[in-house]
């Protein structure tokens, strides 16, 4: 089985190869992205802070990602709670439609929303159109995370709260919500990360104000801008890793709170 372990480590190297290169080039004092490296510098990071359009794109992306995270988690809580609580007619096709974006090619979501917004409703493209689309594609991920949290709830807890005179709403707020809180935080962080990084849909649906990935796409055409892109990428990757680590810790805490063994994985 030593061969298998060796393969697994080689595979991890393959997975991390591109990300590992990122900081190398971000701190490299050369205008081109190639080896050999030629000494360290932080000037690409300094240049980042100078660019007003970059800061605009960053602010835009943060607004979109934060709104998406909240919307997709709220809708996700509804769906996950309903799906784990009860059965109703047509449950499978209804949940199937909600989870469909998970396997649908993103370009299909992008063009269909573009046609609906622009050609049918005559709306302009703006952050709102991107938020609407991102919420749609993040919702299945939120549900997958939250399903885990809600599945583990003991129904007796809610019944006890109801017997003790709480309403359904107050029982949810006082008893269930604290129990599924780690799942909710995890869902917020994952949706936030997906939206922040999403390009395929944002490129179709962004209006005058680009998101961060759309802005980066523009920069990729100019070779002179590439080291700056590497610096930006380094920051984004570091940010994603921090957010996902927190999400993972919260997810595990949630499982522990429900007294369950960890079975691994977000999905």
């Amino acid at each position, binding site marked *: 089985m030593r061969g*298998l372990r060796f*393969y*697994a480590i080689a*595979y*991890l190297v393959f*997975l991390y190869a*591109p990300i590992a*290169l*990122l900081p190398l*080039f971000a701190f490299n004092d050369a205008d081109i*992205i*190639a*080896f050999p490296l030629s000494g360290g510098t932080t000037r690409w990071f300094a240049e980042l802070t100078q660019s007003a359009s970059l800061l605009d794109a960053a602010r835009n992306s943060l607004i979109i990602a934060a709104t998406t995270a909240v919307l997709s988690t709220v*809708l996700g809580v509804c*769906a996950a709670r*309903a*799906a784990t*609580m*009860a*059965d109703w007619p047509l*449950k499978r096709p*209804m949940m199937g*439609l*909600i989870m*469909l974006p998970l*396997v649908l*090619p993103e*370009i*299909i*979501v992008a*063009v*269909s*929303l573009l*046609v*609906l917004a622009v*050609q049918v409703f005559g709306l302009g493209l703006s952050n709102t159109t991107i938020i*609407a689309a991102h*919420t*749609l594609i993040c*919702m299945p991920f939120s*549900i997958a995370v939250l399903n885990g949290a809600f599945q583990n709830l003991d129904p007796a807890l809610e019944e006890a709260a109801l017997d003790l005179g709480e309403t359904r709403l107050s029982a949810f707020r006082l008893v269930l919500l604290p129990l599924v809180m780690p799942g909710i935080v995890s869902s917020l962080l*994952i949706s936030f990360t*997906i939206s922040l*990084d999403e*390009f*395929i849909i944002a490129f*179709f649906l962004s209006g005058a104000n680009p998101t961060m990935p759309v802005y980066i*796409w523009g920069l990729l055409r100019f070779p002179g801008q590439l080291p700056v*892109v*590497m610096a930006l*990428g380094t920051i*984004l990757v570091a940010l*994603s*890793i921090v957010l*996902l680590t927190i999400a*993972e810790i919260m997810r*595990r805490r949630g499982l522990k709170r429900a007294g369950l063994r960890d079975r*691994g*994985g977000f*999905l």
Partner: protein
Amino acid sequence: MARAALTAGGKRGLILVSPPFLYALLLLAVPLATILLFSFWTQDYLDIDTRFTIANYVEAFGDPLYMQLLRRSLLIAGAVTLVTVVLAFPIAYFVSFHVAPARKSLWLFLITIPFWTSYLIRVFLWKVILGYNGVLNSSLLGVGLIDEPLSVILYNANAVVITLAHAFAPFAILPIFVALEKIDRSLLEASMDLGETRVTTFLRVTLPLAMPGVVAAVLIVFIPTIGDYVTPRLVGGPDGLMIANMIQTQFLKLNNAPMGATLAILAMLSVTAVSLVFIWLNRRWLRGPK
């Protein structure tokens, strides 16, 4: 009594699920129906001619360029799927069977992290790795394995396959892992006790039981791959472009939404058809225990 309780619960469930369901209906089902409708209309200079016609489909099937792009997209998606799933299976197997239970989620976390980080820049970095003066060529030259830089690994379909296989790796590993985790380990012991070797146990017990996971992995990689236009644009060169690039061009450059919609529908129909055939071919593995 039980039935009344069920409907009460069911009613609450239905009320709760309606906001997300209506959201998906309005922003997914309605838009999909709209592009289906658009595909039967035509672009008439700046206006859209709303008379029902199959002219777009006739044009799409008649134009060798569209058909070539579609065929190439399916081939690339197939190759990506094959490479990704074959590379992923041993990892899923390793984590499920040879990693201590307490460390499994750490491994899965390590595997999923690269997937969530800056997709565009990741694709771009493959260009840096695979390029003529890239990381791979320089290191192979340095080690002395090759005498001149390889040019078959950038700006063609190979580069697209490598890059996408990297991008979709976790999508393939997770479903296979879940299927392997479900396998009752005592079945493997029974098989060994009954005189099978390790290899035959794997082929006759483990693999068939893992097939639902493999099928899920194939679908979850194959279907979205067809919709990627970033990777072909960045690393594919002229011979690596796919149908999604053409859909993008129709919508954003040629301003021909009906033709773009037609190609989108055709792309979706072909992946669905291939997926259904694949599921049908694997039907004997997907049946649950009797």
